[in-house]
């Protein structure tokens, strides 16, 4: 749910990075954090286990600049990828404005990708949402590893509807900002679609 503060002239949006365990969701956020100017980012919060696996979520607040005189703030969240953390994943999706599905390109992780995507659909449905209705992009991560599926194969299974998609090597930053920009763009287009004018002419 986008939160528009007319007084502070701010718009806040929530983007969730979803995907199977160890696919690189946290790595995406970490790269964004490392490469963003200090004045445009807040602290990155990671609720992780002792072995650095995401336990609840990672959180990174970002400022992307101004649009029509409004500061645009994006709150990036990751979900815990491991199967047994489903209750937490569901909670983090609440109020989502845009979603990035990070797929692990390795052949051995195909089942995990499919399971996670199914799980995303089920959890969105709990909030009355369908994947096709929300701003959504797919990232094929780990393109530098051996034993990976071709983009065509991944697309046919994970992105049959042809949503925007990006190849990535998140550990090197490849494709990370392209993915973020694409989902942010879709969120704004959704805002444009859902709006009907300046609220009661009372915007301040």
């Amino acid at each position: 749910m986008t939160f528009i503060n007319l007084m502070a002239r701010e718009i806040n949006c929530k983007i969730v990075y979803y995907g199977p365990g160890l696919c690189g969701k946290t790595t995406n956020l970490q790269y964004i954090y490392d490469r963003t100017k200090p004045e445009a980012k807040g602290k990155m919060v990671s609720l992780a286990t002792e072995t650095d696996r995401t336990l609840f979520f990672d959180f990174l607040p970002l400022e992307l600049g101004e649009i029509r005189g409004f500061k645009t703030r994006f709150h990036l969240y990751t979900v815990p990828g491991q199967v047994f953390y489903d209750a937490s994943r569901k909670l983090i999706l609440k109020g989502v404005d845009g979603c990035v599905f990070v797929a692990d390109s390795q052949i051995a992780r195909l089942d995990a990708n499919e399971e996670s995507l199914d799980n995303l659909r089920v959890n969105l449905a709990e909030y009355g949402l369908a994947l096709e209705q929300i701003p959504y992009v797919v990232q094929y991560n780990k393109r530098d590893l051996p034993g990976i599926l071709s983009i065509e194969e991944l697309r046919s299974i994970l992105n049959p509807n042809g949503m925007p998609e990006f190849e990535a090597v998140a550990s090197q930053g490849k494709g990370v900002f392209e993915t973020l920009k694409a989902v942010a763009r879709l969120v704004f287009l959704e805002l444009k679609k859902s709006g009907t004018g300046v609220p009661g002419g009372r915007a301040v």
Partner: protein
Amino acid sequence: MITPQMVLYEDEFNRIQGSVSQLVKSANAKVVFVVDKNGQLIAASGEVDNLDTTSLASLTAGNIAATGGMAKLLRENEFATQYHEGKNQHIYIQLVGNRVILVVIYDAKSSLGLVRLRVRKTTEELTGIFEAMNRKAEDPNSGSPFAEITDEDIDNLFND
């Protein structure tokens, strides 16, 4: 379509900010803030200068979400109140109208009893304000100031 957006108008913002600032004084609190259940900070008052309110807001919402999940498993509607006791500072968290979260941070200058008492009044005030906001959001004449953004506006955002 995705979940409807929340638009905070000047009038409501001032009323919320007024309630929150009043609670800082009446409860002798260090900081009071209001967060929506998705983790967006709505208003804050008190000694907020050296406080990372954005992270606190997100963690508070995560906390409430996790507690709400536990409540569901126990077939409780919600645990509306939480209290965390530290060595020097304490946090009192109150769910308001099942939509926003009121957070009070206080130290030895106040007490749990006083905070609980003052929070009750503020909760009532905030409930009224957010109900009015909901009604306004349902008004067919209300909408997003972003209805007229262009592709160019969006492109400009990324030209850095």
